[in-house]
C-alpha cells in the first residue's frame, strides 16, 4: 500500500516538474532575447505576405476570403454566408467585375470554432493571398481573428458578430483591420428609445429587464439614457430572473404607475407571451415595446391577442423586396431549404469591399482598409450602413414590426441617426 502510494506520489511529482519545465513563463530578462528573434522573423514574414498580397492585388482576379462554419453544428448559417458571397461575386462579374477585374470568393471552413477560424483566416492570407476577408458571424471567432488581421494587415469584415471586442480590444484600442456589418448589442437601444420618445411621443415608460442578462440590461440602460435625454421619464424599472415564468408581482407595480409604454427586454418568446398575457390580465393597457429578442414567428400567436398593436425594432432581414429577392435567389440556386439572413450579410460584405476598392482606386489591402474606415454611407440589403471610424461600429437602419393577429408585420424602416 505504502509502496503504491509512494509510486503514485513520485509520478505526480515527475509530471508536475515536467509541466513546470514546459511552462514558458521564464524571467523577462532571459525571455526577451529569445522572443526578439521570432518577433523579427514574424514581422519579416508578415511583410513578405503583405508584399505577396500587394502583388496579388495588382493583377489577376481579386480574391476575397470567406471564413464561416461550413461543416459544424451551425453550418446552415456558414454555408448560407458562402452562397450569398458567391452569388454577389457572380452578379458583380456579370456586370464587369471590380475595375474590370474578376472577383473570386475563396471559402474556408472555420467550423464555428475560434482556433479553426483563426487557422482558416491565416490560410486565406498566407496561401490564397486574399485582399480582404468576410466572416464569421460569431464574436468568439472574430475576437481572436481581429489580432491576426491587424498583424497581417488584411481587412476582415465580421457579419453578425455583435460583441464590442470584435473591433476594439479590452483597453478600448481599435483593431484597425477589423470591421463589422451589424450593429453592436446596445445600439438597438438607441433606436428604440429615440423612436418611442421622438416619433411616438411617449412621455412615461417602464423598463423591464432580465437580471444578469448582459444583452437585456445593456440595451435597457441605453433605452433609459436616450428616452430620458429626449424628454421622456422612466417611471419604474423592474427586473425578473432568467428562469422566471410569473411576472405579476412586478407587473402590479408597473400597472400602478400607468406608463405610456413598457420596454420589455426579454429574449424568449414563451416568456414574452406570458408577460404580455399577465399584463393584460392585470388590466395594464400600456404599449409593450421590444428589441430583436422579440424576433420569433411564434410570439404573436402564443400571446393570444395580448400583444395586438405592440411594436418591436430589429434587423431588417428579408423584409425589403430587394433582400427577399436575393434570399430567394440563393435558396433556389443553392437548393437551400429556407432563407438564411447570413447570405445578406456576406452579399453586403462583398459589395462593401467592391465599393471600397472603387473609391480607393486600388485593391491593395491597406487601401481597402482605409476606404472601409472612411465609408460615409453604404447602401446594402441589410440597410444603410454609416461607419464610425473611431470604433468601426456602424450605425444602421432598423426595421419596425407591429403585431396584428397571430403575426408581427413589417411596418417600415427606422433610419440610423
Amino acid at each position, binding site marked *: 500500500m505504502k509502496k503504491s502510494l509512494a509510486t503514485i506520489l513520485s509520478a505526480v511529482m515527475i509530471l508536475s516538474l515536467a509541466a513546470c519545465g514546459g511552462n514558458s513563463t521564464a524571467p523577462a530578462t532571459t525571455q526577451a532575447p529569445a522572443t526578439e528573434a521570432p518577433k523579427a522573423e514574424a514581422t519579416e514574414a508578415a511583410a513578405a505576405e503583405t508584399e505577396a498580397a500587394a502583388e496579388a492585388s495588382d493583377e489577376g482576379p481579386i480574391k476575397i476570403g470567406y471564413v464561416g462554419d461550413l461543416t459544424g453544428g451551425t453550418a446552415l448559417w456558414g454555408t448560407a454566408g458562402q452562397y450569398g458571397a458567391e452569388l454577389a461575386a457572380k452578379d458583380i462579374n456579370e456586370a464587369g467585375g471590380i475595375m474590370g477585374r474578376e472577383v473570386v470568393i475563396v471559402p474556408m471552413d472555420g467550423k464555428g470554432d475560434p482556433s479553426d477560424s483563426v487557422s482558416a483566416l491565416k490560410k486565406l492570407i498566407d496561401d490564397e493571398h486574399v485582399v480582404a476577408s468576410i466572416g464569421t458571424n460569431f464574436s468568439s471567432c472574430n475576437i481572436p481573428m481581429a489580432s491576426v488581421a491587424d498583424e497581417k494587415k488584411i481587412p476582415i469584415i465580421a457579419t453578425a458578430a455583435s460583441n464590442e471586442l470584435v473591433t476594439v480590444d479590452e483597453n478600448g484600442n481599435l483593431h484597425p483591420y477589423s470591421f463589422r456589418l451589424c450593429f453592436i448589442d446596445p445600439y438597438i437601444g438607441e433606436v428604440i428609445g429615440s423612436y418611442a420618445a421622438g416619433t411616438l411621443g411617449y412621455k412615461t415608460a417602464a423598463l423591464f429587464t432580465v*437580471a444578469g442578462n448582459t444583452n437585456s440590461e445593456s440595451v435597457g440602460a441605453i433605452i433609459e439614457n436616450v428616452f430620458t435625454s429626449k424628454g421622456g421619464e422612466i417611471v419604474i424599472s*423592474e*427586473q*425578473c*430572473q432568467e*428562469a*422566471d*415564468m*410569473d411576472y*405579476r*408581482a*412586478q407587473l*402590479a*407595480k408597473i400597472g*400602478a404607475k400607468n406608463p405610456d409604454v413598457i420596454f420589455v427586454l426579454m429574449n424568449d*418568446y*414563451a416568456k414574452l407571451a*406570458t408577460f404580455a*398575457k*399577465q399584463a*393584460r*390580465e*392585470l*388590466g395594464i393597457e400600456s404599449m409593450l415595446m421590444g428589441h430583436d429578442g422579440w424576433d420569433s414567428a411564434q410570439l404573436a400567436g*402564443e400571446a*393570444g*391577442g*395580448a400583444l395586438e398593436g405592440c411594436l418591436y425594432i430589429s434587423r431588417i432581414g428579408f423584409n425589403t423586396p430587394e433582400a427577399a429577392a436575393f434570399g430567394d435567389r440563393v435558396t433556389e440556386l443553392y437548393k437551400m431549404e429556407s432563407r438564411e439572413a447570413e447570405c445578406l450579410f456576406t452579399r453586403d460584405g462583398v459589395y462593401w469591399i467592391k465599393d471600397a476598392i472603387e473609391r480607393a482606386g486600388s485593391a491593395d489591402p491597406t487601401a481597402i482598409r482605409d476606404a472601409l474606415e472612411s465609408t460615409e454611407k453604404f447602401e446594402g440589403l441589410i440597410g444603410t450602413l454609416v461607419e464610425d471610424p473611431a470604433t468601426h461600429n456602424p450605425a444602421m437602419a432598423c426595421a419596425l414590426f407591429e403585431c396584428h393577429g397571430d403575426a408581427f408585420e413589417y411596418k417600415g424602416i427606422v433610419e440610423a441617426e
Partner: protein
Amino acid sequence: MFFQQLITGISVGGIYALLATGYSLIYSLLDFSNWSHGEFAMVGAYVAIVFSTMLPFPFLVAAMLGVAGGALVSWLTEKVVYRRIRSTGGPNMFLMIGAMGLSSVFQQAANLIFTGQYRSYPFKLPVSTIKIAGAYIGVLDLISLIITAVVLIFLMYIINKTQFGLNVRGIACNQWGAKILGVKVDSCISKVFILAGCLAGVAGILYGAKYNVWPTMGNIGLKAFISSVLGGLGSVPGAILGAVLLGIIETLVSAYVSSSLRDFFSFALLIVILLVKPSGLLGVDVQDKA
C-alpha cells in the same frame, strides 16, 4: 396593490401545493424526499401535449390521460427503482440518490424526444380577467385555483376519511406495526405513489396551461420541496399551508424587495426553518404524519 399581490401569491402557491402534497405523502411513508417528483408533473404535461396536439384527442381527454401518465410513471419508479433499493435494505440516502438520478434521466429523455422548445396546448382561453375588490385575477388562474382546491379537498378526504387513508397514516406512524396488523405495506406504498403521481400530473397540466411545457419545467419541484419543509415534511395539511405561504412570500419579496432576492429569501427561509423548527410550521411529530 397589497390585495393584488396576495391573490397572485395564492395563485403561485396553488401549483406548489399540488406538488408539495405529493412530496409529503411519499416522505411520510418512506422518510425520503423524492427529488424526481417534479418530473412526474413534466411527464404528465407532455403526455397531455402528445394526446392533444399529435393525436386527435379533445383537450379534456388528453388532460386526463396526462394525469394518468403522471401516475403511471410515479408507480413505475416505485416498482422498478425504489422498491428494489428498499428490498436490499440500503439506507434512505440511496433512495434519494436514485431519485436525483431519475430526475436527470427524465429531463434528458424529454429533451431528446421533444427537444428543448416550448410546447403549448391547442386549447387556449382568450386572455380575460375578473376584477374582485379592486384586484384582477385571470380566468385561467381562477379555473386553476378552483381545480387545485377541489383536488386538495378530495385528497384530504381520502387521507382522513377512508380505509386507505387510515392505512397510509398507519404506515407513516409505524410501518412494522401496520404490517403486523395486516396492512399490505408494499401495495399501500404503490397506491400512494399513484396518488402522488396523479397530483403531480394535475400540477403539470395546470402549470403547462399557464406557462407552456418544456423539459426542465419539473424544477418547480424544488419550490414544492421547500413548501413541504416549511409546512412540515410528512404532513399533507402542512404542505398545503407551506405552499400557499411560500407563494405569498415570494410574490411579496418580488414586489416590495427585489425579484432578484426572491429565491434568496426562499432558501434562507428553508435554512431558518431547519434550524429553528425542523418539524415545520404544523409541528409534525410521528403520530401526525400524513
